């Protein structure tokens, strides 16, 4: 229903709010009660002097009667209606509802906005529980250990005899697993306590940006087009982000756009051969800086590379300022990375290319080719520190070549199980690595 046909409804609402009878208002406005009744039921158009008189009597501006509720209120109500469309809200009467019951409409719109905010918070926290490498790895480890203890202890508690060799094995297993559980649970509680004290529950700007980049797979078609305005895109894509996060996103988009202009998609595609990409060879072929090539490779649309490439960028202090993790090579959200990463080797030897085959700690033990280089992040100024920035491109490969031994690396010390690592800077919340004891032969059947 068009808005200008609801003036009568608003007059009626305002009259009721003012505690006036229809006859009383009609008398003061010098019209008949039956005519006012027609107006209030939107059966007669109203304007001019009569509208001004009624507004004066009702002590409101005439525009309140003609324009009704604010557009933002109507828009919020439409969003609420769309979100709960199954309930059959009368969409064609939103304007009438907002005009006749502006207070209740405001309450509904506010409640809807509040619900959306809370749902987002829950989603963020839930997502974090699932994807935070600290929590996910620690909880998985704990639950697996608990499962082994529970099952083994239940066997030992059964009435009847268990073969002596199995009884010894089960006692040993329970002892080992309970020790692992005690250490990992204490470490997890310490981690959660620390996180609560330091306010880690709130999403940091980098974390917000990571979520936006991850959702897009780090590829933004708009940035491949000439003349794109990174600030506008950041404002659009990051509309829900905090102001600091949008600033970070804008800087990332700006660099992405410059990279795309210098190395357009078709040039990169033409230079790519089959198999895993080598950013240093590509840089030479394209006459571009290796760091730029790495950024381009990590932000290519899906399907161009045999497998998506990961990317970590750290600043001169070693802080990770860009993360594109891979499923089998997570990158820490809050901590510094593993000191063994080629990223840091490159940071210590600026401008020198570093390539290593690495296997990250974890259950999957997949192999990656890690290419790293440190290049100036800002113009070099005599007498001032050179602000180098290191890039590390992660390319999944089938397995380490026999003549190229793989380097075992971690994600961050906190979730790395290699307790004897010389680069360790703090204990792992996972506790010591499993003893690696092989299971005995099953009483019937065979085990690998």
């Amino acid at each position: 229903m068009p808005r200008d046909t609801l003036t009568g409804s608003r007059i009626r609402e305002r009259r009721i709010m003012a505690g006036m009878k229809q006859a009383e208002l009609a008398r003061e406005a010098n019209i008949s009660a039956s005519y006012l009744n027609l107006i209030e039921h939107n059966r007669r158009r109203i304007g001019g002097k009569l509208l001004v008189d009624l507004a004066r009597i009702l002590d409101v501006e005439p525009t309140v009667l003609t324009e009704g509720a604010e557009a933002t209120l109507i828009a919020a109500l439409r969003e609420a209606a769309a979100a709960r469309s199954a309930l059959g809200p009368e969409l064609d009467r939103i304007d009438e509802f907002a005009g006749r019951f502006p207070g209740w409409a405001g309450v509904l719109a506010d409640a809807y906005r509040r619900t959306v905010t809370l749902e987002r918070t829950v989603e963020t926290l839930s997502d974090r529980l699932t994807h935070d490498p600290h929590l996910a790895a620690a909880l998985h480890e704990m639950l697996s250990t608990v499962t082994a203890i529970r099952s083994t202890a239940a066997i030992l508690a059964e009435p009847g005899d268990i073969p002596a060799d199995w009884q010894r094995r089960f006692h040993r297993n329970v002892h080992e697993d309970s020790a692992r559980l005690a250490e990992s649970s204490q470490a997890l509680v310490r981690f959660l306590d620390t996180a609560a004290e330091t306010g880690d529950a709130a999403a940091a700007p980098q974390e917000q940006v990571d979520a936006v980049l991850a959702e897009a797979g780090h590829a933004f078609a708009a940035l491949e087009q000439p003349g794109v305005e990174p600030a506008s895109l950041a404002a659009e894509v990051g509309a829900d982000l905090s102001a600091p996060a949008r600033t970070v996103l804008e800087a990332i988009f700006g660099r992405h756009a410059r990279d795309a202009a210098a190395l357009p998609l078709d040039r990169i595609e033409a230079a790519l051969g089959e198999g895993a990409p080598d950013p240093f060879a590509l840089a030479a072929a394209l006459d571009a800086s290796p760091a730029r090539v790495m950024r381009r490779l990590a932000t290519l649309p899906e399907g161009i590379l045999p497998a998506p490439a990961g990317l970590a960028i750290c600043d001169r202090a070693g802080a990770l300022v860009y993360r594109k993790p891979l499923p089998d090579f997570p990158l820490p959200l809050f901590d510094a990375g593993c000191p063994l990463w080629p990223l840091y080797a490159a940071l210590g030897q600026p401008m020198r290319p570093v390539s290593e085959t690495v296997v990250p700690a974890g259950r999957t033990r997949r192999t990656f080719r890690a290419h790293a280089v440190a290049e100036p992040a800002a113009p070099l100024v005599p007498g001032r520190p050179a602000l180098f920035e290191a890039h590390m491109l992660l390319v999944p490969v089938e397995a380490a070549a026999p003549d190229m031994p793989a380097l075992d690396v971690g994600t961050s010390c906190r979730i790395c199980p290699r307790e004897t690592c010389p680069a360790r800077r703090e204990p792992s919340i996972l506790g010591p690595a499993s003893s690696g004891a092989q299971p005995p032969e099953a009483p019937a059947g065979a085990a690998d």
Partner: protein
Amino acid sequence: MGRELLLIEDEPNIIEAISFLLSREGWRVRSHSNGLDAVDKVRAVRPDAVILDVMLPGRSGYEILAELRAEPDFRDLPVMMLTARGQNRDRELAEQSGVSRFMTKPFANSEMLEAVRALVAAP
């Protein structure tokens, strides 16, 4: 000779406990700890049922199951997924991959045994 069950799980002490329990029920239990060649192992063993962990070295249980289900020989193979994660999202993934049953860690031994009986009894 009893029926054969392949247990694909990387936690040695869980393998020991489950192997012990199922072997007492008459199952011949074989175990395998690596996700990368788990499908080859199933092809070689051709078990009557499989217990499959979700988080395995090299490859996830979801990928393994999806590849098995793509082969006519294993379309109806009873497979129970065992995971430390029991969230709805994981259940959905398991169902999309074609799982027969889904069980979360930690479990009671009686629950696990009952689930295996139901796994092979199901039409």
